[in-house]
């Protein structure tokens, strides 16, 4: 009995025949046929980035077996336009700025096409329903809905939306279509996982089996025996096995111990991804399990297991601390009519960009190396990668293809050094693309913070003092934590004037995920604590929380706790506009509080 079967189907009105096993339609399209507009983002029917039309209906290609396409019509975004002429939907998406990072765009277009084919003049509710299986992480959906609605309106002759128009003459003050928009709407934008090079190998990591453990031995021999495996690297193969922007405390591949589940113990390159993953699972690691700690406060207890030799207080400067002081907090708290002392906690948050991390490395004959990675901080990270590889920068070229969503999550060096080393070892291009599970396991998250805030307020509602003590959960490595913490501390009084301030921020190592950059960069956590406490203080004083904020809002001429003079402060106007827009009424709200 054969393990694969021959199937024929129509792909964008052309007959295609191929042999398939038990791969999905998405795999067959992307890998076998090289049709890369359907994107692999969640691989579980949760996001719609892989949407194709099967006959006339949108389906998730990641949940359809390739064999099930036999005898049917498959349409991808490549099948929308004929030649150089864009389909009206593609044109409308382009003109309305409906494609931002572009990763959800092909799927979004196909869901929209299926809708308009069945219902040429849909209502806004029908449009929203039709794209409800397609996640977009950038646009907030409004522009996408507008782009589809405009087309329906054009058909009914009631088009009153204002699409972008290509500028004639000056562009200042005009809304412009994205320079990369045409690639997004035609599905021709090539993200890192869409790239394939001749002879390319696929790589897969072996992650730690424990939260915290000493490594006694790594035996790769059984992995190497798996047919199709080209190379396996371990810690000994990394030229400079410590990385880190501020503190070099992160092994590229774990050597003495693993400090969280996302630590890499070995990395395999093989002829395909499943073979690489299978070989990784055959690698034998002898661990000695160590006690782990997952709470940043518990990590600083005297009896807590040490994650690094020097203890769990992250040594990012001599004091292991960031301190901001102004005025006399103790005196001001004593003089306050109301003092509130409360501790606020925030959780880790994953960026969940639609495009998973992907990295591709290709060696050249002269010993040089090219790496493709959707990294947001290309030059700094290139230098870090070169240092890990001990390659001169002149031998390393790092290219950032279009990024399918970053939000700070593609701010770190992840597995670029690993594919680079495997490429140098094998002399072949090596690609690795993360699964959605790996995104949660191995990428950085927004820092969990424990923030103790003490506020002192005078009877008339003037904030007199603020005492802040933040402990950040850095995860097992320092990464960008000090920079994020610095911004957090600077913003720990919120947009309010406070004359007597004492802010301290420290970081604890834990066995949780690595924490890193995430848009807002430490300010989001501060805002949660500050605004929660503003409400509590207003309630204690019996005054309208909006009025309390207005009264204390920073104004032009004020200085921040770090001494920065301000001359363009918008918080007062912002409060005015928002309260007008929502019809704020202190009386109505008073009842609910």
């Amino acid at each position, binding site marked *: *009995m*054969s*393990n*694969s*079967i021959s199937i024929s189907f129509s792909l964008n009105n052309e007959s295609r025949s191929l042999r*398939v*096993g*038990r*791969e*999905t339609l998405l*795999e*067959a399209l*992307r*890998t*076998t046929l090289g049709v890369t507009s359907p994107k*692999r983002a969640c*691989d*579980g*029917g949760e996001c719609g980035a892989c949407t194709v039309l*099967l006959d006339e*209906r*949108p*389906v*998730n290609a*990641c*949940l*359809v*077996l390739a*064999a*099930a396409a*036999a005898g049917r019509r498959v349409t991808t975004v490549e099948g929308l336009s004929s030649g150089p002429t864009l389909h009206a939907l593609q044109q409308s998406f382009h003109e309305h700025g409906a494609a931002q990072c572009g990763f959800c765009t092909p799927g979004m277009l196909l869901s929209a096409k299926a809708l308009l084919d069945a219902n040429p003049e849909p209502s806004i509710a029908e449009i929203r*329903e039709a794209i*409800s*299986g*397609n*996640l977009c992480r950038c646009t907030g959906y409004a522009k996408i809905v507008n782009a589809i609605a405009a087309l329906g309106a054009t058909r009914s002759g009631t088009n009153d939306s204002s699409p972008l128009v290509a500028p004639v003459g000056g562009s200042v003050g005009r809304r412009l279509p994205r320079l990369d928009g045409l690639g997004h709407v035609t599905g021709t934008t090539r993200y890192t*996982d869409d790239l394939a090079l001749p002879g390319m190998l*696929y790589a*897969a*990591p072996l*992650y730690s089996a424990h939260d915290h453990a000493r490594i006694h031995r790594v035996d790769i021999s059984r992995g190497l025996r798996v*047919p*199709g495996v080209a190379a396996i690297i371990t810690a000994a193969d990394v030229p400079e096995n410590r990385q880190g922007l501020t503190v070099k405390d992160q092994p590229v591949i774990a050597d003495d111990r693993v400090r969280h589940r996302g630590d890499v113990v070995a990395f395999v390159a093989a002829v*395909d*991804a*499943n*073979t*690489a*993953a*299978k070989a*990784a*699972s055959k690698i034998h690691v002898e661990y000695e399990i160590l006690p782990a700690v997952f709470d940043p406060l518990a990590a600083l207890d005297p009896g807590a297991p040490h994650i690094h030799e020097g203890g769990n207080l992250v040594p990012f400067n001599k004091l292991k601390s960031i301190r901001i002081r102004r005025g006399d907090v103790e005196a001001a708290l004593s003089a306050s009519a109301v003092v509130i002392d409360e501790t606020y906690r925030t959780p880790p948050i994953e960026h969940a960009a639609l495009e998973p991390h992907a990295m591709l490395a290709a060696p050249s004959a002269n010993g040089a190396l090219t790496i493709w990675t959707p990294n947001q901080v290309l030059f700094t990270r290139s230098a870090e990668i070169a240092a890990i590889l001990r390659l001169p920068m002149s031998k390393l070229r790092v290219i950032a293809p279009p990024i399918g969503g970053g939000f700070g999550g593609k701010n770190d060096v992840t597995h670029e050094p690993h594919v680079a080393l495997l490429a140098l070892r094998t002399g072949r291009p090596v*690609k*690795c*693309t*993360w*699964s959605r*599970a*790996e995104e949660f*396991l191995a990428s950085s998250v927004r820092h969990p913070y424990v923030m103790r805030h003490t506020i002192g307020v005078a009877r008339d509602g003037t904030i007199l003092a603020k005492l802040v003590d933040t402990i950040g959960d850095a995860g097992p490595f320092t990464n960008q934590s000090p920079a994020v913490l610095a911004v957090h501390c600077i913003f720990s009084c919120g947009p309010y004037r406070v004359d007597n301030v004492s802010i301290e921020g420290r970081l604890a190592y834990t066995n949780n995920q690595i924490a890193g950059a995430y848009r807002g960069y430490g300010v989001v956590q501060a805002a949660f604590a500050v605004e929660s406490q503003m409400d509590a203080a207003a309630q204690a004083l019996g005054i309208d929380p909006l009025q309390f904020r207005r009264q204390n809002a920073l104004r032009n001429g004020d200085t921040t706790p770090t001494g920065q003079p301000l001359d363009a402060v918008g918080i007062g106007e912002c409060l005015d506009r928002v309260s007008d827009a929502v019809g704020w009424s202190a009386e109505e709200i008073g009842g609910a509080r």
Partner: protein
Amino acid sequence: MAASGVPASPSTMSAYHAPASLDAALELLALKPDALVVAGGTEAVRRLRGGMQDTRPIIALSGLEELRGIEGTSAGRIRIGALVTCTDIASSPLIAERAPILAQAARSVGGPQIRNCATVGGNIAVRCPRSDLLPPLLALDAIVTLESRGKARQLSLAAYVAETALSPELLTFIECDAAPRGTCFLRMSPRKSLGPAIVNVAVLLLPAANGMRWERVRIALGGVAGAAMRPQRAEAILSVAPCAGEELVTATAAAAAAAQEESTPQSDVWASEWYRRHITGVLVRRAIAAACT
């Protein structure tokens, strides 16, 4: 250890069968009782991808046209082929007229792409306690037909979902009551689209001819126990209540409280046991009120 990238390797392939008729499918299933049966694929393919080393043969049912029909029976019931998709249910004029609660539930499954593939049979056969079609089908006294080579048996849906032993049978047809009025389906989910039901509730209230008492009361819950279930005490409380007035309001509250007591929810990533129980009471109360009007 997570697999990354594509493609599948030849070493993990195994036979794929797409029988063209029900008889052929039953014959295959008799020969390969351990086969992975794939209907719409939205659950089976996901499971397949989770298990890299899964080498079971696949029997794909997509060619069985005889299981794609929705029809009224001579007894006034509705007969639905197991391969009817959620989109088919949601857009069927017959369902809209005779069992709108089913259309409502079908529209809440996954997102449009999922509904275009996911089948009624699959929704039942995966035995997920929060499948959205189960509560309305339980409220409509559904029975399922299970077939194996040369054999067919019928079983109430309630008995089927409570059955744990999985025999190599195909679920081929679902038959349920018509209920043009007096029904309501509600669900609580973390988000409107692509969100699993934390709790789902179906209520059917059929007044007797005199309009004073209920002739039939059905309450069915999903997400609150190991399998979708009917809270019998809650149904009994409502059965003796009048069809309107203050006493109905009191009985509704009592039925909601009984439903909470009869549910045995568990905590998971989506909701805590406490929240599930709380929401059960809220949804039962709202669904009874809506089914009355």
